[in-house]
């Protein structure tokens, strides 16, 4: 039987990634107001968001190609 693990991980990471993008869409105005502030620790927000999205969406895209069957040919 086919290994279901990558599919489950694809769904899980896709849900997290989708939820993050949904939040971005729903709270666009508030996010833009906070992320362009230059006082205090606000300038860190874009960097933090980039990291969070790269982990969640990066995991999703990785599983996406894996589930499609496109995998690296290990040379080493």
């Amino acid at each position, binding site marked *: 039987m086919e290994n279901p693990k990558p599919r489950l991980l694809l769904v899980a990471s896709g849900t997290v990634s989708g939820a993050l993008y949904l939040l971005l869409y729903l709270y666009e105005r508030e996010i833009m107001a906070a992320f362009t502030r230059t006082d205090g620790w606000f300038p860190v927000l874009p960097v933090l968001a980039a*990291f969070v999205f790269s982990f969640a969406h990066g995991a999703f895209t990785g599983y996406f190609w894996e589930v499609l069957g496109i995998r*690296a040919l290990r040379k080493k």
Partner: protein
Amino acid sequence: MEHAAAQFIDLQHGNVLALLAIGFVGGLVSGFIGSGGAFVLTPAMMSMGVPGVVAVASNLCHKFPKALVGAYQRNKFGQVDVKLGLVMAASATAGVWVGADFQNRIKLDFGEAGSNLYVSLAFVAVLTIVGAFVLRDAVRVYRSGEADAQEKASRLALWVQSVEIPGTMMHFKTANIRVSALFTLPLGFATGVLASTIAVGGFIGVPGMMYVLGAPGLVASATELVIAFVMGFGGTIKYSLHGLVDIRLALILLAGSLFGIQLGAIGTTFVKPFMIKVVMAAIMLIVAVSRGLVVPVYLTELGRLDLAPSTMAWLQMASFAFLVLALCTGSIIIIASMLRGHRSGAITLREPAPD
């Protein structure tokens, strides 16, 4: 500095779709050759009405997480020399500062058109010379029938590796080279200067690591992602302190580019090493044509030429079309090589799990 909310555009659905598509293609090329994409992403965002500085800032904010994911992926394939990447990135950061300062001076002395002319001439000169050299090397490898063989270091690289300067020698394990830091420093510096001038430092960094230091193409292009991460990260903080990052643009680009960069990274594992050089040379030479086309426009703005406004508009449109063509050509070569790999059974299709 006050925050710049007034400068941010209303995003239309069409814009979002375009950003996703360009992000994907840019990511695919970056995953494969270590850089690329910025030269189309930034002008594309500007054509949507995004101010130049916000486009640059948002591109940088999408670049560093993209490079992180790409470097992580290619590190799994044993292609990244983290130490070489960090050493290069350290001097590249200094190069970015000097390059940006130089650019500002040109802008002050010669105005916007003078600055644009300088950037375009830098593009044409660097990309034509380096691109032609990379293409010549790729053709030589192909014709020699050694496309499958391990890459040989260039004569320059062999000389660089033979120079022993006590106290400065560094060993880079994955790249399998031992060179003096006195050679990596100017190379990283030049990468940074170019990055701050034309936004794509990898066009110097990758050929430099290949032909000057003697790193294999696969390792050089993968290591460039470490440099891109460091420079993108630093640049994002710099612009974020002025409230200039449009996080929506950065994250939408990231949504497409993370699909692309993973596919590009996977692609490197089943193409012949010289294909990296083919893609790189093709993109560099087409981008050189694109930038060459706008040189007469800037010369007209500076009063050195007399072109009709319609001719200038046509040249600018043709220039942008060539940028898109560069990215598309790179992507088509990558996907075609992957399909060839697929046909030859190189891609491992989903295997049944062991019971």
